[in-house]
């Protein structure tokens, strides 16, 4: 019974993670420029990867594998924003300008 609950929960996490990975992929295709696409990549790094890993942790149970998975979670949390920042800064230095809102396409209207 407990085994089944654990499996169900773990599957919910893994499927949820898969959903956010797909959303991130769709975002990469739909969003208009490099800087906005970074936000879609952010979904993949955070919700996508972390939910997947949470599901794996439940499957691994209480073992050394769990410790390693948690370390991966920690490292992703530290490295992915650093990488995103490095990419954004490199793009700016390369003369790539972010495409900004002109005011008309905001869902809340202008100020």
């Amino acid at each position: 019974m407990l085994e089944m609950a654990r499996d169900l929960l773990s599957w919910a996490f893994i499927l949820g993670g898969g959903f956010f990975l797909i959303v991130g992929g769709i975002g990469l295709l739909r969003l208009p420029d490099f800087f906005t696409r970074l936000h879609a990549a952010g979904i993949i790094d955070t919700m996508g990867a972390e939910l997947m890993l949470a599901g794996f942790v439940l499957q691994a149970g209480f073992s050394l594998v769990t410790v390693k998975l948690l370390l991966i979670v920690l490292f992703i949390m530290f490295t992915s924003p650093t990488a995103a920042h490095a990419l954004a800064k490199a793009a700016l230095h390369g003369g790539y300008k972010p495409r900004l809102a002109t005011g008309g396409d905001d869902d809340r209207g202008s100020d």
Partner: protein
Amino acid sequence: MLHAIYLGLASFSLWLLLSGYFEIFLLSLGLLSTCLVVYIARRMDVADHEGRSLHMHVFRLFGYWAWLGMEIVKANLDVTRRILDPRLPISPEVFWSPVTQGSEVGRVAYANSITLTPGTVAIDLEGDEVEVHALNREAADGVRSGEMDRKVTALDL
């Protein structure tokens, strides 16, 4: 010197966790690589400057991580909704926001927290300000409110 010992202990515990081996021969190899890492870190002059993180308040840090986790989940749901919306309701903007952390570690923690939250990316950090690219105005207002900035400053990293 104390920092070098901390670094050595931390590195060796990490080695133990990752390897899971407890034979004498392999343990001594692990010890050898730990010593090498500490030696290189000292030679590179990083061991004694960046060892401060061991002095921080661990419980406050976990409290902050829990709060940040909730913020990340909320931001993820918001950005997901925008990506899947056929109208793609985004209004990207770039702005500078004040940074109140005193130490380098604190500023990096704040900038990384901004980037980790989908919808906002820290693209530059100069003086006492961070330059942020936001996907839409609500995300930008979240950074402008300064709540995250205050929480990171309170960590006193």
